[in-house]
């Protein structure tokens, strides 16, 4: 693996510096390794995201207009330490509290919780909503064991919009929880990414196998299946999402007439060509079920270096979420004009 880097031990610091440069004055570097918007209005209920680096453009690429106010950035594939969470919290807080919205990984939960304790010591009101969209990581009765994967992009987009109008932390928390509850993802992986510091692959998988339901670092899913066609795999993956809405007693089954936001993500090496071919099948799949695609996102937004793999995320939309969606937004991760495609 030829990587264009300088010092393998400094990649996380340097990439966050570069990210701040990409924002060209709209964001600043804060504390040890956080990125925070410059123009957060007084009294805004703040939205903070974060997690390990190396998955660019997430998580820190989700800071932006009508998106997150800041991000606490960890080292490669490692949760940000509590002081970084605290420094980011202090910087985004405008007196009306801070919502932490991040993927459910043990390391992240421990460090964000510690960061929350430090922040509360400074009288900052902090609330946490965990993202656990990966339906293959635990059954619907054990959602607290589920991982956060690509669904965090639409969820943060929706919460970012909600944070523009929310007048209390309670309100923003409720909106974010709704976005989480309505979003489900399934991912697969076909080959590993590598850790810049060691150059070593993050996991092993046979040349002719696909890890169905595998997480974004190679965590196990529901099965290892033989390499197959884009169309067959798409159906298998979407069936798992449909089944989860069915089995989960907290949400209604997906049914004819429902509207969904569809996100097709690449884990890195899987090309846009492949995403679009899979998207084509997904469109046919939902159309056949009478489920309407409200809007579409596609691209390599949640990655793990040069890992190959794809995920589908589905968010069931209602009027509240549609309102959040239609707001324009702008970031290195995801930008859009007002409205939606075909709308």
């Amino acid at each position, binding site marked *: 693996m030829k990587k264009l880097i300088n010092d393998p031990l400094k990649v996380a610091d340097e990439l966050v510096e570069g990210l701040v440069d990409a924002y060209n004055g709209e964001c600043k570097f804060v504390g040890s390794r956080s990125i925070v918007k410059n123009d957060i209005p007084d009294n805004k209920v703040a939205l903070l995201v974060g997690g390990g680096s190396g998955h660019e453009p997430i998580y820190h690429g989700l800071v932006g207009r009508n998106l997150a106010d800041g991000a606490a950035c960890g080292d490669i594939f490692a949760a940000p330490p*509590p*002081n970084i969470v605290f420094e980011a919290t202090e910087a985004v807080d405008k007196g009306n509290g801070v919502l932490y919205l991040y993927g459910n990984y043990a*390391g992240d939960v*421990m460090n964000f*919780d510690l960061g929350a304790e430090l922040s509360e010591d400074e009288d900052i009101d902090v609330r946490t909503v965990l993202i656990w969209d990966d339906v293959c990581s635990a059954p619907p009765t054990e959602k607290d064991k589920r991982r956060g994967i690509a669904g965090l992009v639409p969820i943060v987009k929706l919460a970012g919009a909600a944070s523009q109008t929310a007048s209390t932390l309670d309100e923003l928390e409720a909106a974010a929880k709704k976005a989480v509850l309505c979003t489900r993802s399934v991912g697969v992986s076909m080959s590993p990414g590598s*850790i810049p510091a060691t150059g070593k692959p993050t*996991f092993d998988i046979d040349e002719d196998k696909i890890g169905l339901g595998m997480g974004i*670092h190679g965590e196990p899913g529901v099965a290892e299946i033989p390499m197959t066609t884009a169309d067959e795999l798409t159906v298998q993956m979407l069936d798992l999402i449909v089944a989860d809405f069915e089995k989960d007693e907290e949400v209604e089954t997906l049914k004819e007439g429902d509207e969904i936001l569809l996100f097709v993500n690449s884990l890195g090496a899987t090309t846009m060509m492949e995403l679009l071919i899979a998207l084509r099948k997904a469109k046919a799949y939902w159309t056949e079920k009478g489920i309407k695609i409200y809007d579409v996102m596609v691209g390599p937004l949640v990655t793990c270096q040069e890992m190959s793999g794809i995920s589908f995320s589905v968010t069931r939309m209602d009027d509240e979420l549609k309102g959040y969606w239609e707001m324009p937004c702008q970031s290195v991760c995801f930008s859009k004009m007002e409205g939606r495609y075909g709308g």
Partner: protein
Amino acid sequence: MGKETLSINETRDMMLAVADKIIESEPILTDADRALGDGDHGVGMERGMNAVKEALANQEFPSVGKVFMGVGMAMMSSMGGASGAIFGTLFRSGGKALGDAETFDGAGVATFFKEGVEGVMKRGGAKPGDKTMVDALAPAADKAGEVADLPVCEALSAVADAAEAGKEASKDMIATMGRAKTLGENSRGKADAGACSVAIIVAAMRDFAA
């Protein structure tokens, strides 16, 4: 002749010795985590202990507890990830429980490990048997409770043996937490990386006090 108690500065120097020992053991820890995890525990602990050395060297502390809390804070903020939180919590919780004591004795050892392991279990949710550093730490804490009346040198010696035995026992366990749970039955036969760190830390404490 081993030490009866440790002063604040001796406690600080003991932790500097621990730091050197962990840095020296980086390859062992890397190998352990490579076998069962993602291979970064060695460099993570090395980074943490370099931060510890920076935080402790030539510093004066008002109490023994503050020394340990400084260790915890340095690890927590330099390492990140699960293990930064876990090891940071061990030293912060253990140190906090020591109050403003100005010496580290057998009773202090007992308090430190008891509160340390409780903090870790509360923070990370791991129980003994999950094949984590708790499997070295919990037996260490139990033993520390039993030997609270002994001089610090003897107490730490007994606790180090217990940590070592706990680490060895972790070889037979199946991982249920963290990355290694991927391996299921295949995780048997090797010791947990974090448990190795605990055993090395306590052994270095013993060697200093001896």
